[in-house]
């Protein structure tokens, strides 16, 4: 009898992978597909809209090229690496190996999280670092400890920060909502003002924001999340727990700091990279824990620590750092979670859970105490005295004598005073007749609202006329100035024959701190149009700079209408 030989396989025979739509490959392809909504919105916002504004064809395709290059870089770097160093299996070509390790993903993610104005060579360095240092030397796909894209990102953001940040292609040093957060915490702007500056709560939640492609649209992220969940690519627990922890902790912190908690936590949640990080970075399977409770603890700590870093560190957005930090801990958390899950005694379970709760309480209370100690105390005025600044006007009479002087109209207990000051807020008018108490308040309110000081009061964008010169042929050259985000913006305009014409817009001081590298993409007339506040910005929303431009322009028109009784505009 002939012996029938059977193949030996490991049980079970039935595998879900026998379905050709199930497997590692499909998971990774779905992951790439999930990036599409974000990429499309990013291309629209940063490519199409810019193209409509300035008619430069390159700016239309720039985001697309940027993303494609990212993927191409990591892919080709892995190809080269396998060609040079991997001699294990000759029959598989290096291109195939590169495909099998899904090398394209770190590159795509990098190009999404890096600012769009990053030079291509920095993108290349980021890709090189991500692929070789963070992935390949650990043994390639599946063996890396840290998220490759984040390692590359952190590396170039640390090493080339000046180059990346100074090379903005948009003219405005747009303070993204997050960079204004410091003002909220350490100065005395209110959250309502902050949200108003960013275009309202709805805009913050679902609008198109300035920033990298990843930060652009919450709605697109939501689509991606739903897609990833439906396709079971990621574990839905992780993003949800991150978001809930983040929101809840921000809520508690705001309650203790006596800030509107809903506004504060929503503002923090929808700005910056926390949502993108929660959906695409923290769920990256290789570097996150595998065990059930491990995933929960991991997500919980990410939510907590990223808020901690955001509020207390110099980093603009702590999410990426947090995720890398947690990547490092994920092996320990994995083991911890696996044991917690099989723990039989309730008391032992409780002990382990209490460790996490203690960490949470410690970090949260530390945050609250620290921020409270930083916060400038707001002195409350005496309740008996009702003091109010009604308006500030430039004195055009004095301007004729080439003196810049301002009149502050101040109301104290139904009594009105008009106080004149110079540009630095030194009081010129005689206030000796007033009582000491009133004097103190008047000085305080003038110091708080004085022109040319960077503060967060409404008047810090106040535009005024610096000088006027009347030419022989009847042209009047008017120079106006307003305080911008960093320094002054200056507009020089010519008034002749009932027409205003802008001669020069000087923003060089405003962007001085950012390296002074400006690649202006607009013409001077564009700037004035922008300054009108209509389409307030090409890339970002209302910014300090554009508001200042608007004020400076307004000062010119105010002056002209005072002098000539209005223009024909």
């Amino acid at each position, binding site marked *: 009898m002939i012996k*029938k030989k059977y*193949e030996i396989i490991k049980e079970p*025979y039935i595998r*879900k992978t026998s379905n050709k739509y199930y497997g*590692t490959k499909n998971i990774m392809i779905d992951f790439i597909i999930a990036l599409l909504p974000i990429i499309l919105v990013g291309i629209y916002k940063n490519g199409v809209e810019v193209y409509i504004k300035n008619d430069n064809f390159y700016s239309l395709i720039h985001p697309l090229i940027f993303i494609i290059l990212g993927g191409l870089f990591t892919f080709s770097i892995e190809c080269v690496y396998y060609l040079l160093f991997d001699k294990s299996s000759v029959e598989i070509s290096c291109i195939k190996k590169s495909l099998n390790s899904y090398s394209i993903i770190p590159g795509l993610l990098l190009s999404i999280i890096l600012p769009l104005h990053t030079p291509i060579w920095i993108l290349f360095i980021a890709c090189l670092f991500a692929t070789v240092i963070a992935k390949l030397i650990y043994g390639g*796909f599946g063996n890396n400890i840290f998220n490759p894209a984040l390692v590359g990102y952190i590396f170039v953001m640390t090493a080339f920060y000046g180059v990346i940040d100074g090379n903005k292609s948009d003219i405005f040093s747009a303070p993204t909502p997050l960079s204004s957060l410091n003002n909220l915490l350490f100065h005395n702007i209110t959250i309502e003002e902050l949200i108003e500056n960013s275009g309202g709560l709805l805009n913050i939640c679902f609008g198109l924001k300035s920033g990298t492609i990843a930060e652009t649209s919450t709605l697109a992220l939501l689509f991606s999340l739903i897609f990833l969940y439906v396709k079971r690519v990621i574990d839905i627990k992780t993003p949800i727990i991150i978001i809930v922890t983040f929101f809840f902790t921000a809520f508690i912190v705001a309650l203790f700091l006596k800030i509107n908690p809903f506004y504060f936590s929503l503002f923090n949640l929808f700005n910056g990279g926390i949502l993108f990080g929660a959906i695409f970075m923290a769920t990256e399977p290789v570097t996150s824990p595998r065990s*059930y409770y491990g995933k929960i603890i991991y997500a919980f700590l990410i939510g907590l620590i990223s808020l901690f870093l955001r509020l207390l560190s110099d980093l603009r957005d702590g999410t990426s750092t947090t995720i890398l930090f947690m990547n490092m801990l994920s092996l320990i958390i994995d083991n911890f979670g696996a044991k917690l899950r099989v723990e039989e005694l309730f008391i032992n379970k409780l002990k382990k859970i209490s460790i996490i709760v203690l960490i949470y309480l410690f970090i949260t209370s530390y945050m609250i105490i620290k921020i409270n100690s930083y916060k400038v105390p707001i002195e409350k005025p005496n309740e008996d005295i009702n003091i109010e600044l009604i308006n500030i006007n430039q004195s055009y009479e004095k301007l004729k004598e080439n003196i810049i002087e301002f009149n502050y109209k101040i109301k104290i207990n139904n009594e009105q005073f008009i106080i004149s000051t110079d540009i630095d807020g030194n009081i010129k008018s005689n206030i000796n007749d007033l009582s000491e108490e009133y004097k103190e308040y008047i000085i305080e309110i003038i110091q708080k609202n004085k022109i040319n000081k960077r503060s967060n009061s409404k008047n810090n964008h106040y535009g005024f006329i610096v000088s006027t010169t009347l030419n022989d042929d009847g042209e009047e050259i008017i120079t106006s100035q307003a305080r911008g985000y960093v320094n002054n913006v200056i507009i020089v305009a010519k008034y002749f024959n009932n027409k205003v014409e802008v001669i020069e817009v000087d923003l060089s001081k405003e962007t001085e701190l950012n390296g002074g590298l400006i690649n202006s993409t607009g013409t001077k007339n564009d700037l004035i149009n922008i300054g009108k506040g209509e389409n307030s910005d090409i890339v970002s929303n209302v910014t300090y700079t554009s508001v200042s431009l608007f004020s400076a322009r307004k000062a010119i028109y105010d002056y002209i209408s005072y002098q000539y009784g209005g223009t024909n505009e």
Partner: protein
Amino acid sequence: MFKNIKICEYKDNKKISNDVKSIDYLNPKNIYLPLFDHNESYECLVNLDQKVIKGEIVAVSTKTKIPLHSSVSGIVKSINTKMWTKIGKLVECIEIENDYQETTNIILENRQLTNDEIIKSIQEAGIIGMGGAGFPTYIKYQKEADILIVNGCECEPFITCDYRLMLEQTIKLINGTHYALKALNASVAYIAIKKHNHEVIDILNKYIDDKIKLLLVNNKYPVGWERYLVYKATKRKYKNIPIEVGCVVNNVSTIIAINEAVRYRQPLIERLVTITGYCLENPINVRCKIGTTLDEIINYIGGLKHKYHKKVLMAGGGMTGKSIPVDELVITKSLNCVTIMPLPKEYNKLSNCIGCGRCAYICPTKLTPTEIKKYYQLKDKEELNNLKSNRCIECGLCSYICPSKIDLTFFTTKAKEFLKRG
């Protein structure tokens, strides 16, 4: 509470052998009785060339004293022939050549027995768990319990022998249940059955009374797990064995064997085995003698299809069945199914663990297979203990779900064995 999932692959797995009436194959040429089964060795009681009759005890287990009966009459040819058994290893067997005389001293008599006599006759008949676990049945009956669960779920794909038994031997099942209830002093018996098996439910509905109830479960895997059934029927949870909370779970085949043993004093020498799989010409349930080799049965029922070049033989269903390289597989008491399937494409094309955590998510015992695999490869006994590796029920779901085709069940089972070896 307890996770179970619907297995969507091979949807017609039960259908191919469900509707065919079971047949008998009771004339094997030789029988082989393995001397090691379910972590227990058996002591051989016969010599070479000794003549044995049907129903004679030829071996007895060392610890639990379970007798092993000869299922045919004939001559002992050898007491150390190496044969494959369902545990996936070569095991020494007693080989008995059949003389087709069927000489026996079994007297089939109708008896009325007391509790202790029932338990004694269960032990004497050599009954062990016939659903696969092979746990000695009489030990379960030594303590009193109030609930008996008759497990007819057959949640594992491809197995249909319990279904056929419930359909063809309903009376025996009901009688056996009554005996078991009497032996346990139990108040109620639940017959666990899948919701969609309407034929069986219709038949069993006739016998339902105060003492026997139906427990309908979903068509998911692993609903046939003891812990799940006990929880489903009584909402009780236990630590190690169900008797702790006053429950006993028995397979349908076991209950029928109890009926035969108690009523007719017949030892366990036959059982129904599902011979199924896409590679067989006629997948069918076969009643055969314990010790028959599989190749004889396959020849008897019509052989293999020739269109599949490479095949896989599993002693068991599609999930827990161990792969066996030859078809001289011995039918033992706890082997309920043999599945012969074509070799899946790219079955060994592993990729790296992407850490998705599906294995941990799906595990019904809440283990984390990736961690267990890691510490098994490091041979770290303490960590494996901390991770409660011995809780694994070897259901195979972790390997089933793994998108990277990693053999997690294999490693977890190995870790369990490693811990047991001490």
